[in-house]
């Protein structure tokens, strides 16, 4: 099929709305954000457009004393560290729960599989804010978990889980579990199960078949699942806010703060830009590490 000029023009016109919208309202704002991160802040929010400054990045590591000397300040690094730790923990736990769940579904009959996948998808598409709120009801003192533990005599006094990093971790695992199950299931579903039968025929036991055949074949789904959990978790804003109760600040809360009470746009832009850079780096490392041809 050759493309005459008229058809080519038509195709360009068809692509224009999407391309222009994304360029103007997604790519351009990102570039503007990067630019603003190297400008000087104005007093009440905003930036000084003609004043370059790397203060936002300096502020991330150092504290400027009254006499203008810099001392190392690890507060922000700790927040980044905590974000990595919590998001990483959530990724590992969702993988440990999500992989067996996906395997369980993949081994069912066609009709049951579709129903179970619908059951996994429903939370995926329902409002995350509301589901996070539901955990507040469950976890708070006097809530269902607390009162049932007390009734069973398993705990004395208040549970005190809500507003701790543990609550944030529980919320993360809960919120992002479907993001892990769905891609792993997709790769398991496409798998040629005769390969596993062949492994059994060749004398492999279940564990060997799982480790040597199923896991490597499911790897694209596992990697995709890990990214789909890690990325939203590390940039999460309201889960740490609501379940962590301001005590376990994460990157998202720190960023939001710069546009709220702190009124330091360049610092907020710089933090967002660093988060973006880390996410892109993590993606790059993951894909390079795991997308090797099978059999290495």
């Amino acid at each position, binding site marked *: 099929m050759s493309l005459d000029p008229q058809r080519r023009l038509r*195709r360009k016109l068809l692509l224009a709305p999407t391309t222009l919208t994304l360029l103007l309202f997604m790519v351009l704002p990102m570039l503007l954000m990067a630019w603003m991160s190297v400008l000087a802040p104005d007093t009440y929010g905003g930036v000084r457009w003609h004043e370059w400054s790397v203060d936002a990045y300096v502020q991330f590591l150092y504290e400027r004393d009254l006499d203008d000397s810099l001392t190392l300040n690890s507060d922000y690094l700790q927040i980044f560290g905590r974000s990595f730790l919590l998001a990483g923990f959530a990724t590992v736990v969702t993988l440990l729960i999500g992989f067996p769940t996906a395997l*369980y579904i993949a081994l069912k009959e066609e009709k049951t599989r579709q129903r179970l996948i619908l059951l996994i998808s429903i939370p995926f598409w329902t409002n995350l804010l509301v589901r996070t709120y539901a955990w507040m009801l469950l976890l708070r003192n006097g809530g269902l978990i607390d009162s049932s533990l007390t009734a069973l005599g398993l705990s004395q006094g208040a549970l005190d889980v809500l507003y701790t990093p543990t609550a944030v971790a529980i919320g993360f695992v809960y919120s992002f579990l*479907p993001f892990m199950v769905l891609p792993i299931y997709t790769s398991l579903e496409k798998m040629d199960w005769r390969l596993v039968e062949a492994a059994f025929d060749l004398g492999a036991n279940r564990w060997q078949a799982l480790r040597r055949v199923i896991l490597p074949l499911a790897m694209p789904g596992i990697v995709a699942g890990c990214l789909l959990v890690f990325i939203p978790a590390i940039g999460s804003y309201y889960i740490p806010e609501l379940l962590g109760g301001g005590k376990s600040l994460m990157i998202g809360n720190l960023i939001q703060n710069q546009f709220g009470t702190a009124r330091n746009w360049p610092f907020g832009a710089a933090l967002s830009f660093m988060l973006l850079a880390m996410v892109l780096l993590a993606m790059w490392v993951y894909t390079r590490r795991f997308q090797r041809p099978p059999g290495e």
Partner: protein
Amino acid sequence: MQASNNLWRFRGVTPTAMLAFVYLYLPIVVLVVLSFNANRIATLWTGFSFDWYLKVMDNDNILRATKNSLIIACGATVLATSFATMAALAMAALAMAGKRFRGQAFINAMLGLPLLVPEIVTAVASLLFFLALGLDLGLMTVLIAHTVFCIPFAYLPIRARLEGLDPRLAEAAADLYAGPFATFRRVTLPLILPGVLSGAMLAFIVSLDDFVITFFVAGAGATTLPVYIFGLIRMGITPEVNAVSALMLLVSIAFVALSYWMGQRKS
């Protein structure tokens, strides 16, 4: 089937899966049950009551926020779905012609951006952009931001549907002297309609549910339902929040079930 064979039973898989399903649904069930609780103390069950739902229906702020949510979700769905349909048609035609043009990888990368970039980063970038342009934050800025992140959700199912389309059908229409528009309206559109509808529904849910981006780019007058709920939650746990949250869940679940049912029908 595989499952009938003893070899295929991996130890621990069934209990883990059961645990996962309970884990996913326990909070939803608890929330819905507590929304019917007669008691003022939101977590202590005393009796069945519809009161909180009636209170929600009577609350002007909630109604206004719901109206905003619906206006924005409808607007963003229409814009994103029509843009995405056009783009998917063009991309499919290009793929079929076997021609790679320079922008193709770039457009694919751009379509992936709203899905990959953490929401808070998109939110900050959009906020700074709107403020730098001197735009007033309001329904307009929310609509623009929502259209952007809805485009990929609408695009993917349409593109998938087009992939399974027989190109000879459009060629046959052209042979029968149908113009490009008539071919689209009478042949291509009816064939890809399930994809377009499921894309539109995804866009609608995603827009209706969005909190983070809306929270940043909505001014005082453009509060949507999730933003309003967030404000309520921050003030404390109350039965009204339970009721309005349960309603929100119900709408999403209805939409997912509907899109599942439509998917079943086409196959």
